[in-house]
């Protein structure tokens, strides 16, 4: 089968890497390091852990890229490796076990007066301090998501993978992706709104 899932630029870079080009390796890093770093930081919450995730992802990727058959996009394959690195990191740290987020916890009985305070992100550069505070609060809220919900949320809403791609990257069903994403979003809305309503 000649058809590949990678785009033309990645396809060319992979071919050059397989032919022994150091430059191609560096171009692949340049294309994806920021996104893998963002993912690592959103998953682990610490710079050092995020660096470990980036290093491990690219080291493993280039170890096996020679055998990569381009049946999936390069970006998706890299995120699959990064996801495994995050799961390994979590196991090593012996974190608390995951807990389930219940949908019922977001159902407010007699809740017609429920209001959510969700702030706007201003484009005004003079609001940089407020933007930074808002970002810090949102990052903390994402960190407080249970790990398996955080994985889905970060892949879907931060990295922009679709439901099927996320299902493939994580090796879980499409329905599980949808369920976890919905609960993660509701959880984050409560956290963000709660923060602003407390003042």
């Amino acid at each position: 089968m000649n058809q590949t899932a990678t785009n033309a630029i990645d396809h060319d870079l992979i071919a050059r890497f397989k032919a022994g080009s150091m430059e191609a390796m560096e171009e692949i890093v340049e294309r994806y390091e920021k996104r893998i770093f963002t993912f690592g930081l959103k998953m682990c919450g610490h710079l050092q852990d995020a660096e470990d995730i980036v290093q491990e992802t690219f080291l493993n990727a280039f170890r096996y890229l020679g055998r990569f058959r381009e049946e999936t996009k390069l970006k998706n394959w890299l995120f699959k490796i990064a996801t495994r690195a995050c799961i390994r990191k979590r196991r090593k740290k012996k974190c608390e076990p995951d807990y389930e987020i219940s949908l019922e916890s977001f159902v407010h009985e007699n809740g017609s007066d429920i209001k959510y305070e969700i702030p706007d992100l201003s484009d005004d550069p003079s609001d940089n301090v407020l933007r930074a505070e808002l970002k810090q609060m949102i990052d903390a809220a994402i960190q407080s998501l249970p790990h398996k919900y955080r994985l889905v949320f970060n892949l879907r809403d931060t990295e922009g993978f679709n439901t099927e791609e996320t299902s493939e990257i994580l090796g879980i069903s499409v329905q599980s992706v949808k369920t976890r994403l919905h609960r993660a979003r509701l959880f984050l809305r409560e956290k963000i709104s709660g923060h602003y309503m407390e003042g």
Partner: protein
Amino acid sequence: MKEDCKKHFKRISEYLDGELDERACKEIEANLEKCPECLECLHSLKKSIQLCKETGEEEMPADMRDRLRSNLRDCFSHKLK
């Protein structure tokens, strides 16, 4: 929340993501027209998703980028040129 609204509440994310068929969308939209609580739920969820997306990007520190390149060169220089 009314019992009828709960079944729509479960599918709001799928609705926002455009993952529901036409019939399911119409059911949700009919409910939104008559239920201010569900409408508020939809708007606030949409807004918080957008906010998380807008604050999502991180900058990788320059020293970290340098260390990554240096490690990769060390590991693969024997088979790349």
